[in-house]
């Protein structure tokens, strides 16, 4: 594993505005994620969590604002270019490519990189991180369980050796035990490799349990930004937006 200084990059989102036609999905969102830390983005359905991720990764072109990865602006770039600037999105569990094998999915994550030897090494590291995948290398991804798919999506993003990871609802459809496992692993990656994580979750409780910082979105606006313990202790916030 690499040292923190090599891996980590800060993510700075400044006044991001995204619109779909006349509908304003993000209304000037600013979030700052220090290198090597986890920030959880919480909120109900329709709060703008998905719009935020899609705007950061380039799947949706934001209207205005800044997206700085280690100070470098990736605002408005195509997703394939954002990946090459060191920021990878992990789509929610179903985002594995079902018709490809586990091994093909993993290899795909690193194909854009020119260093072939390191690509192969990164795939093996992903197998070491997720032993269930190691036993199913030649299986089609469609045969995997929900938890295994989530591991595959995560492992595949790591093969790109990202410095910033955007995680989309990793707990979606998973049993609590598996969710806890995945969250624990993300925490470990941060601590050991200095990976920076923006964790978008509807499952506020489990996200706050691993995050260093929490942000609550509502109707495309940041309504709270604080440390996890404070957010979890705020009854009004919990009832209004977090649902626990």
């Amino acid at each position: 594993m690499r040292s923190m200084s090599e891996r980590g990059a800060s993510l700075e989102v400044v006044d991001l505005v995204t619109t779909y036609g006349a509908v304003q999905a993000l209304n000037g969102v600013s979030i700052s994620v220090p290198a090597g830390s986890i920030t959880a983005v919480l909120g109900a359905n329709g709060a703008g969590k998905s719009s935020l991720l899609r705007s950061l990764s380039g799947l949706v072109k934001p209207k205005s604002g800044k997206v700085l990865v280690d100070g470098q602006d990736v605002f408005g770039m195509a997703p394939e270019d954002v990946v090459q600037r060191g920021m990878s999105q992990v789509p929610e569990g179903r985002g594995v490519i079902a018709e490809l094998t586990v091994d093909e999915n993993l290899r795909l994550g690193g194909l854009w990189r020119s260093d072939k030897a390191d690509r192969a090494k990164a795939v093996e590291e992903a197998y070491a991180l997720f032993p269930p995948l190691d036993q199913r290398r030649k299986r089609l991804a469609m045969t995997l369980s929900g938890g295994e798919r989530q591991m595959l999506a995560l492992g595949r993003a790591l093969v790109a050796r990202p410095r910033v990871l955007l995680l989309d609802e990793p707990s979606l459809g998973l049993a609590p035990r598996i969710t806890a496992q995945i969250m624990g692993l993300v925490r470990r990656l941060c601590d050991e490799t200095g990976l920076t994580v923006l964790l978008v979750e509807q499952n506020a409780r489990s996200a706050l349990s691993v995050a260093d910082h929490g942000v609550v979105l509502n109707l495309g606006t940041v309504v709270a930004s604080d440390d996890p313990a404070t957010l979890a202790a705020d009854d009004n916030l919990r009832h209004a937006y977090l649902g626990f």
Partner: protein
Amino acid sequence: MDRFLSVTISGLSGGMIYAAVALSLVLIWRATRVVNFAQGAMAMFTTYLAFTVLEHGGSYWVAFPIALLTGLVLGAFVERVLVRPVENGPPLNAVVVTLGVFIFLQGLAGLLFGGRFRSFPAPFSNKNYNLGNVSTVSPFEIFIVLSVALVAALLFALFQYTDVGLRMRAAAFSGEVARMLGVRVGRMLTLGWALAAVAGSLAGILVAPSVFLHPNNMDGVFVFGFTAAVIGGLDSPVGAIVGGLGLGVLLSYVASYAGGDLQTLSALAVLVFILMVKPNGLFSTTATRRV
């Protein structure tokens, strides 16, 4: 019995041509969810280009790769320049564009090369070898089977065993996820169309000796190729080959034992039957994807 053998064999070689057309349709369908109705016309056009080379004294072995290469370029051009701008619109838009290309190419071919039927040479003899008294297979039929098999095998290897093939499959199966992983999906789709058009052009130049060269000469072949592709499931390359061969053999039986004018009707009957029994075709994976 002797006749049965030679009818079966000629059905297989004809089926290989339908398989090539079907393969080109399947590759494009998989990548962009568009049925390329211009595929037959594109193949007709590249065969005319090969014919022009022959007319100017070029050898068949120069004309043959020229047909395939111009197919490659034409396929890339049609995707990048004509289909790309409408790719994100309603699916019907792209279909209308391919129909436009179909009409345009037929008109252009008529303009450039005239509307006469031209005979197109075969590189090998069309006379069947005899095994004792049994007429079996002609050298040209062997060439048809081998060349389509070779192109199909090369395409399969490219898709299955190379990095660019993996990118192309990822782009075809899930464009958005592929982009997130750094795949330049647009480029892969252009390449997919280009390779598909090579298979189409191969069918065009192989079928020309038997159907003659004419701006409409691929229309019937296209219909059979399309039928073969649908039988196979429209998104399965293996299905395209199996569908093409099955249809070729069936049509050959119909033509020899029941009469040539029943061919098109029997292809339609098979199509309707398969769609009733297995609406997704014989080899489609679509059903499992939608679960």
